[in-house]
């Protein structure tokens, strides 16, 4: 900052001071811009001095360069700022950073913002955000102070700012009360910040969903190249008071690598492999785990395929048959097959034995909604593809992505042994559900 010998008006001084703001390291998140799919900024929020939205031009440049929306690099340097963006629900959340900060810190926070919006509005779309712009602003104000996360726990936020519901809107209109809490949420100060106090339910229930996703790559010949299981236990706990739960497994050794909701007592897990926790109120993810690729993973479906393009001909053959493999006697449901056909394919003329298929000639995306697999009568999709005349034969056969669900089965064999509650007197209703899904399940052809 230059020293002026002459007295300078205070506004100039202020401007100079502002300059020093930029010189001194101002950490963490400076501003946030929300950009929709067509490249419009539809919301901006600044936590420090205002950053012109023209800073986003660097982002737009990157957006133009990227062939796919996902290909925009998450971290974009600009001369004076850094832009860190995440893409969720076709909205880019672009955070403006001025100096060194762990990028994951920002990325994780942005995802947390999206999760919160989803939690509050049911969906996180441009329309929902625009409709609730005031709540959005109030939320962002609470979640970040001076660019540093303040309250990100959904239970705390909900005490500060009530989510908009129709009922509450009506009540507020009549009584003149507000959506904004007047007291500091007790969670902020307590050692169990994730749980609000004074919870009351008439029906006390606790549901746990064990959901496992299989990530696999299957090669041409049907052998498994890599397969691993990624599991989560999602809970919906509606219990009065301060229940203290323990959840134990029949075979905890299966869990190779786990990450916990902060409520889980880590030491107890280390010592006894028992999950002991005071749950948050409502929905939360208790734990996610990983069953490593070193273990043998059962692959519940197989695919027989014959996709071929003949040299010189403008026709290609397409045959696909699905069948159940290791399903432990459970039905494979909600099967959806999708594949990105080569660019040369003009159209596909296929005949599904069940379900419906669509082919988008522009994106070349083939998708086949199979439904349930009947082991007696295996679903198949057969027919021909027409290729661009004169185009050469594509070098690679398309990869097939499969989605499916199997109810009442955790493919890793994980079993919950028992769930106990301490600290409260009533008998809660307890439920545990298992489900296996396809994660990133790819078959190379």
């Amino acid at each position, binding site marked *: 900052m230059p020293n002026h010998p002459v007295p300078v008006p205070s506004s100039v001084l202020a401007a100079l001071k502002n300059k020093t703001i930029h010189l001194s390291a101002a950490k963490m998140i400076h501003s946030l811009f929300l950009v929709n799919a067509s490249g419009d900024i539809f919301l901006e929020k600044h936590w420090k001095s205002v950053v012109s939205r023209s800073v986003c031009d660097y982002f737009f440049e990157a957006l133009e360069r990227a062939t796919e929306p996902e290909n925009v690099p998450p971290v974009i340097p600009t001369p004076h700022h850094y832009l860190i963006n995440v893409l969720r629900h076709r909205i880019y959340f672009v955070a403006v950073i001025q100096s060194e900060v762990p990028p994951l810190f920002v990325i994780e926070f942005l995802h947390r913002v999206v999760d919160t919006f989803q939690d509050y509005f049911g969906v996180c779309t441009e329309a929902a955000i625009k409709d609730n712009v005031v709540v959005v602003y109030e939320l962002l104000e609470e979640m970040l102070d001076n660019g540093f996360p303040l309250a990100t726990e959904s239970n705390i936020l909900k005490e500060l700012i009530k989510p908009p519901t*129709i009922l509450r809107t009506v009540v507020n209109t009549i009584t003149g009360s507000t959506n904004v809490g007047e007291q500091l949420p007790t969670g902020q100060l307590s050692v169990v910040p994730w749980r609000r106090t004074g919870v009351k339910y008439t029906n006390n229930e606790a549901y746990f969903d064990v959901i496992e996703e299989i990530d696999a790559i299957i090669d041409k010949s049907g052998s498994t190249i*890599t397969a691993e299981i990624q599991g989560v236990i999602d809970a919906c706990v509606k219990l009065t008071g301060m229940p203290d739960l323990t959840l134990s497994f029949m075979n905890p050794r299966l869990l190779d690598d786990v990450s916990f909701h902060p409520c889980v007592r880590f030491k107890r897990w280390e010592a006894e492999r028992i999950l002991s926790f005071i749950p948050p109120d409502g929905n939360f993810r208790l734990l996610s785990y990983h069953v490593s690729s070193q273990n043998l993973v059962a692959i519940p479906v197989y695919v027989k395929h014959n996709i071929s393009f003949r040299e010189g001909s403008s026709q290609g053959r397409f045959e696909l048959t699905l069948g159940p493999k290791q399903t432990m006697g459970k039905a494979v449901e909600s099967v959806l097959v999708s594949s990105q056909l080569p660019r040369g394919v003009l159209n596909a003329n296929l005949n599904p034995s069940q379900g419906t298929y669509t082919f988008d000639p522009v994106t070349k995306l083939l998708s086949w909604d199979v439904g349930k697999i009947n082991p007696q009568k295996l679903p198949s999709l057969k027919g021909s593809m027409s290729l661009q005349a004169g185009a050469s034969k594509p070098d690679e056969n398309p990869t097939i992505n499969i989605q499916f669900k199997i109810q009442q089965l955790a493919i890793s064999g994980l079993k919950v042994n028992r769930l106990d509650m301490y600290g409260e007197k009533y008998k809660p209703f307890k439920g545990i559900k298992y489900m296996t899904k396809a994660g990133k399940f790819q078959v190379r052809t």
Partner: protein
Amino acid sequence: MLGMSANSVSYNEQGSVESGVDAAQENSSIPGSFSSGGAAFSLFSADCKKNEDLKEMLESNKESLKLEAMKRIVGLIAKGKNASELFPAVVKNVASKNIELKKLVYVYLVRYAEEQQDLALLSISTFQRALKDPNQLIRASALRVLSSIRVPIIVPIMMLAIKEAATDLSPYVRKTAAHAIQKLYSLDPDQKEHLIEVIEKLLKDKSTLVAGSVVMAFEEVCPDRIDLIHKNYRKLCNLLVDVEEWGQVVIIHMLTRYARTQFVSPWREDAMFDENNEKAFYDSEEERKVEQTKPYIMDPDHRLLLRNTKPLLQSRNTAVVMAVSQLYWHLAPKHELSIITKSLVRLLRSHREVQYVVLQNIATMSIQRKGMFEPFMKSFYVRSTDATHIKTLKLEILTNLANEANISTILREFQTYVKSQDKAFAAATIQAIGRCATNISEVTDTCLNGLVLLLSNRDETVVAESVVVIKKLLQTQPSQHSDIIKHMAKLFDNITVPMARASILWLMGEYCEHVPKIAPDVLRKMAKTFTNEEDIVKLQIVNLAAKLYLTNSKQTKLLTQYILNLGKYDQNYDIRDRTRFIRQLIVPNEKSGALSKYARRILMAPKPAPVLQSAFKDRDRFQLGTLSHTLNSQASGYLELSDWPAVAPDQSVRNVEVVEPVKEAGAPALRKSKTAKSNEKFYSDSEEEEEEEEEGSSSEGSSSSSSEESVSESESEENSDDSNKSSSSQSEKSSSESDSEKKKKTLKNKKLQQQKPDSKDRKQKNGNAVKVESRSESESGSESSSSESSSESGSELDSDSDSGTDQKKNTKPKPVQSKPFIKQVEKKEVSLLDLDDFSPVPVTTPKSSILSPNLLSDLQGLLISPTTSALQASSPVFVPETSHELLHRMTGKGLSAQYRFTRQPCIYGNSMVSLQLTLSNSSDQALENIHISEKSSTGQNIHRFNAIERLEPQASVTVSMGVDFNDSTQAANFQLCTKEDEFSVSIQPAVGELLLPITMSEADFTKEQGKLMGMNESSATITMTPENVSSQSVNRKVVSVANIGVIPSSQENIYRFAGKTVSSGSLVLVSVALKDPDAVITINTEKTVIGSMLLRQFKTALTNSCP
């Protein structure tokens, strides 16, 4: 007020026009245009009218109208529109009673105060008032807004407010103060010195809420003042697990930097280790001491940091996991690094953006330490649905991981990628293949052949990339590959990508001697097409011509001249220049002079092969996990990680002297107040009263002593009692008490059980000293028998005041406590006890019913004790000489083996139990190659001794090994092998050998014991044999059973011992209270199984009469 959606509906109706305008405006400012500001101005006239009605609404008397106006204004701000002219109208509402309206006004103020400084000043007094509000939320938000108003004039006011808030009773307000520090600093850096004072004060704060924020402020304002951290280092480490996740990230990064300045490098150790591994292991112990003047011992504080951050790898927050990973990367001994691998791989399942950052960091790590990620290679396989930058990063990592063993798998995988529809990715794969080929000489030929096959690929980019990579590969060994060069020459006509053509031509020229027939022919063809080629190709044609001219001038002289002539008149000046230069160089004439003599040496100089290496090669100059690392360039505000100091700075700077706070009388009181605080926090509904009470109770606690606390706190109920019982099911019970007695005592027992463990154990000391009467009660069936007996003793104190006083003294860690103090205490006790007897305290306050013993201990774990550091490992008190048979000479065909537990910390790993193995050869011939087989059948981690090459007949040798029993008494089974045979052997550890002794002060012992009550406690009463009653014999017995340390005890008849489990480091506390002729053994540990097993062994040891 009006409800949300009603408002938003009306807002939308009004806004429909506006949004139309809006769309127009925003369309004009889509990509690239900087005119959005201007556009807003042009629209401003339209906005003006609407703003008029907003102004009216704000000035109306109706709250609902005001609120609606504010909501619309916030909508304008969100869209980035200018609403500054409404400032006067808005600022009037700053003192509104309606909290939502007020908040929206705050939002507005923070946004525009900078532009309207004079008007903003009007609002300051409101905030100053609010700073004194009894509601902490209001105080905090007033400070937040006040400090967010970037108006330089109010700097002094802000400074004052921050100083005040930093001493606020509410931790939430203190947290806000920490945030405000940064804001004030960026507004006026001249305040730095004052702000550092506040930071220093807040760093001492014990609330987990404040820790993250104040460290953030520290990092921003004075990151170089590392000295401020010293005294708080251990506290921060211990607090870390309970800090909120964002704070954890900041603290971990700061501690990484701190540790690099304060500790010596642990990496040296690895080098030493490797070196010694060469030699036989059994004698390395001595040798190392000779060789190394100073063996590396990790500073306990360094270890503390590593230990306390490790559980955070399990965090759901990816930033925390990454932060811990980078901490381990930069601070941990290399052999401990592997624990971060799994967690990092787990993060790959997260969002695309997270993957991107994590993969970058893995890429950097995988260059230096392949081994870390090799087992997880398959997790880096590319899926067709990955985004391009993810694919490229995965490819990078796979290439880094490639070695002789896995290269074939990787190449097979690469083959799939080459065919990918994503051509940029396919090209990147080809480069990766090239890198594998240069790095692993075994596969160079395979790769080269594969790449040659790709030359006939239909895709140009693939072909071009292949040619370029082949060119690079050939440079390393051209002579062996003339056929490949020939093949490429044949394909030349079909290749259209200029870069590829240029590369082939360069190859022809460079190695024309290997293809003497073909090269001139290629030149001939080129001469024909010269004019139609791209510039880059033309340059190479000129080069080729020149080189051929020099080597084979007979055949190519004319061709060269022709080409040089073409080049001379080319449109591109580069080509003209090059042609002119070449001509002067190669064609001798009188002017060219000396240079042409060297033409051959100039043009045909051997060219070094390009080094194909990772783009992440030098990335580790940046701290991992930082923005700078991601960008590979230094971001502003990046703080360098210093190198390890050669000599560790003074360690004692981190010692925190146990200062007794002035207002509190003694150590027990201090403890008390903390307990109260944490519990109250946990229950608190209304903060303020509690705050006051907190103070009250702590001061009360300081003046009162043990048993009346039980009364003041006994608002609890059967509930906790129940849960106590149920959870204590695992503990050993020795209920030999009669029913009638039980009934009599029920009331008391209940109350007693509700006491905080803390007070319990203090009383326990009392009680154990008291003789007969209390003993009968001590068997009262429930788990905390000793605590009951103790309180009993407390209640009897008034009658036998003399002995009571003595015991009281003993309970205080500081026996200096004055007598009047005690007297006062006694008086109080009487009255309270009376009250207690006649009017049973009303049972149940539902709030506290949540208190399971478990939770209680958790809560206590949250407290930071300045003395935790006093838990230090100590040397074993007693090392039994007995050895156990591992292998009998009969079964071992002459080889016999015995093992014994050395009870020393294992040098091979912190979680291992150290064993000494004596191997002797009782056969008549030498045994060779004695070793432990690689495969251990039970899954324990075993550190094997180095193979013994030869053991002469009748000789014996002693080796040491380590076994990680994982805190279980499960036997470790393994194969002991000689050259010819394999013997299955197993080591069954006694439970006492799974421990390591530690020392701590008596006070710490009591405190730790207090945290391990309930189901973590097991106790039993035994009848001592007379010869065991002496203190020495008790000590001897106990330490011979278990490897634990003796804690100096100030009470005559109580013996205390402390240890920790080797594997997990859980505390194991043992106390033996003698009450002639009986004794109560109490074991407190989280490891309940170990606890009960130990108890059984102690029981047998102490009742056993043999010495």
